[in-house]
């Protein structure tokens, strides 16, 4: 039998940094999960995964090295589904990424997929997860699920536009980049054995949205403002006034909302709203206004196109292209280490409201979205809404839940009802300062 030719593709513009930025004990990964109404049966999950991966040739891939760049190569068969670990986003060694750049895990009623960021962003990841969950439900509950609301038809071949790197396509004509100041970095006692503490806060999405609107902001802007306010207080407690740095939050922007793209590759940029405490003391209302105006100004198709141009131009420079991979890696890593993680205090990514076909809804309890921590900054925050609930997933690599305390208690003080769940408060002490 003739062996199937495996598809390969270049890394997209945003993804090029991730393999270079990796470390021996860290790589940039994120996790999406779905909790069903029944215990997961691993053989069925494996069967569902086997059926789903041919539909996603840009996600079911491994990273490979070439002379000048990394590239993605389709994997011939699905990875084996594995039981979940004690914490999310356990280290994904680069040797594993060279074999398969994502993994599928299960625990009780939950299916989770952990992606190396070079292969997908949250929006394409959620399509993959919904399609996987739909296929699993077809196999386990024998229900017919229509291919709508982001559930793909796995009998269809993948479309070329889903596999395209859309950054060059929507690049502007002028370069617009702004230099960012180094921001405040929270420090704490590192967890042993790379343990990651995860705290999930569940809030009524309608209540938060109403509160955000009453302050003249969107839900994301409001949450980002509360986060900035929390960081400002933490900095006030720890750093003398003259040495206080700007507090900024990195907010990924889904470019599919600004450009007509259906790609399943990375297609996100970011904006970085924040305030500088050297300018004076900020009240929460001021921070909300600042955040609202900064984000409104930054998130426009034209501005994003000009920033895409800056990135794409760099990648297309002939001098850069002919440099061997190890030299590129050295410089990209250097730039990433010197600047990448220090420009913001935290990443806050809101994946928005997840919708599923009506037939799936009774079988799905909730969705989850966890960002991996950066190598140096210890906290990250992912948000996702489903079934009228907003889930805020706060991960940290340090022992002290100081940021979670500040952030969630601020929300509580504003009258929101918060339910919390964690992976660390069952049999161990909680180190709070």
């Amino acid at each position, binding site marked *: 039998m003739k062996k199937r030719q495996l598809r390969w593709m270049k890394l997209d513009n945003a993804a090029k940094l991730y393999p270079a930025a990796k470390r021996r*004990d860290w790589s940039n990964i994120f996790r999406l999960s779905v909790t069903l109404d029944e215990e997961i049966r691993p053989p069925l999950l494996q069967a569902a995964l086997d059926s789903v991966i041919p539909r996603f040739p840009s996600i079911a891939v491994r990273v490979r090295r070439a002379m000048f760049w990394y590239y993605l190569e389709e994997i011939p068969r699905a990875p084996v589904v594995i039981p979940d*670990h004690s914490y999310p986003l356990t280290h994904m060694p680069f*040797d594993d990424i060279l074999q398969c750049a994502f993994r599928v895990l299960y625990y009780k009623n939950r299916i989770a997929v952990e992606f190396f960021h070079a292969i997908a962003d949250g929006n394409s990841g959620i399509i993959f997860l919904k399609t996987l969950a739909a296929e699993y439900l077809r196999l386990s509950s024998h229900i017919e699920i229509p291919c709508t609301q982001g559930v793909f038809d796995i009998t269809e071949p993948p479309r070329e536009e889903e596999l395209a790197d859309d950054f060059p396509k929507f690049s502007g004509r002028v370069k617009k980049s702004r230099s960012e100041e180094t921001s405040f970095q929270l420090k704490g006692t590192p967890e042993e054995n790379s343990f990651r503490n995860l705290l999930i806060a569940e809030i009524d999405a309608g209540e938060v949205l109403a509160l955000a609107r009453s302050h003249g902001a969107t839900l994301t802007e409001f949450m980002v403002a509360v986060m900035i306010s929390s960081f400002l207080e933490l900095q006030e407690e720890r750093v003398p006034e003259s040495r206080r740095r700007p507090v900024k939050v990195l907010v990924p922007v889904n470019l599919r909302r600004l450009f007509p793209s259906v790609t399943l590759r990375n297609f996100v940029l970011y904006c970085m709203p924040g305030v500088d405490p050297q300018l004076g003391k900020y009240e929460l209302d001021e921070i909300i206004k600042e955040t609202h105006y900064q984000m409104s100004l930054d998130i426009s198709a034209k501005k994003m196109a000009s920033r895409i141009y800056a990135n794409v131009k760099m990648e297309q420079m002939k001098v850069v292209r002919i440099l061997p991979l190890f030299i590129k890696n050295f410089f990209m890593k250097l730039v990433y280490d010197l600047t990448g993680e220090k420009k913001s205090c935290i990443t806050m990514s809101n994946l928005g409201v997840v919708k599923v076909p009506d037939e799936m809804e009774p079988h799905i309890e909730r969705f989850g979205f966890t960002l991996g921590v950066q190598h140096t900054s210890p906290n990250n925050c992912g948000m996702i809404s489903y079934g009228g609930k907003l889930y805020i997933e706060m991960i940290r690599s340090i022992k002290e839940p100081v940021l979670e305390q500040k952030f969630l208690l601020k929300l*509580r003080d504003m009258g929101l009802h*918060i*339910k*919390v769940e964690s992976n660390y408060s069952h049999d161990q*002490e*909680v180190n709070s300062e």
Partner: protein
Amino acid sequence: MYCIKCGVELADSEDRCPLCGTTVYHPDIEKPNAEPLFPDNPPEPHYTVTRWGGLFILTSLFLLGLTMPLICDLSMNGGVTWSGVVMGAIGLAYVITVLPFWFKSPNPVVFVPIDFAACGLFLFYLNLCTGGNWFLKFALPTVGMVCVITTAVITLCRYLRRGYLFIFGGATILSGISVLVMEWLLNQTFGLHNKLVWSIYPFAAAILIGLLLLIIAVSPKLRASLQKKFFV
């Protein structure tokens, strides 16, 4: 249940509030059993170079270090002359630095006497090579003395896990005495002097330090006062 301190609702799986650590307890409500958010399934530790791989590389390097001088010596002198000393030194270094790591949890109480035994053997070989008669008279008693003191300190520290001031005080005094014995052995073996000359000074210093440690050990008040002055 709600955290009485933070006011947030806690999932049924929580034993403590994940924000402040307050234990979940209500005298009238029984805490429902719920599955934890994540299983108790820590990931396998990931090593890019395994312990055995690292030891294999180190052993190979030591073997290379052993064979190179041997080959040079054989090709230049047609026999083992100076290379024996080099190989002995490399072997001794291997026994001290690498050998314990072949075991999962090497016990120093076992490996310290082994190190001293290897050291003794190496000195015995040097004695034979140089045609001297100092091994039995000087080297063996000296190595034996240091071995006994070191092993005693390590054993007591490992198994008693208390009384460190007594252990180190006693060991310092014994070390001072052993320096005296060492000079006496040197004088006897090599006929240097008829009386003790230099060893008096380290002996006096060791006795003073040792006694000081013992006094601190028996006096809780002095210990507390020193702790106050010198805490780090």
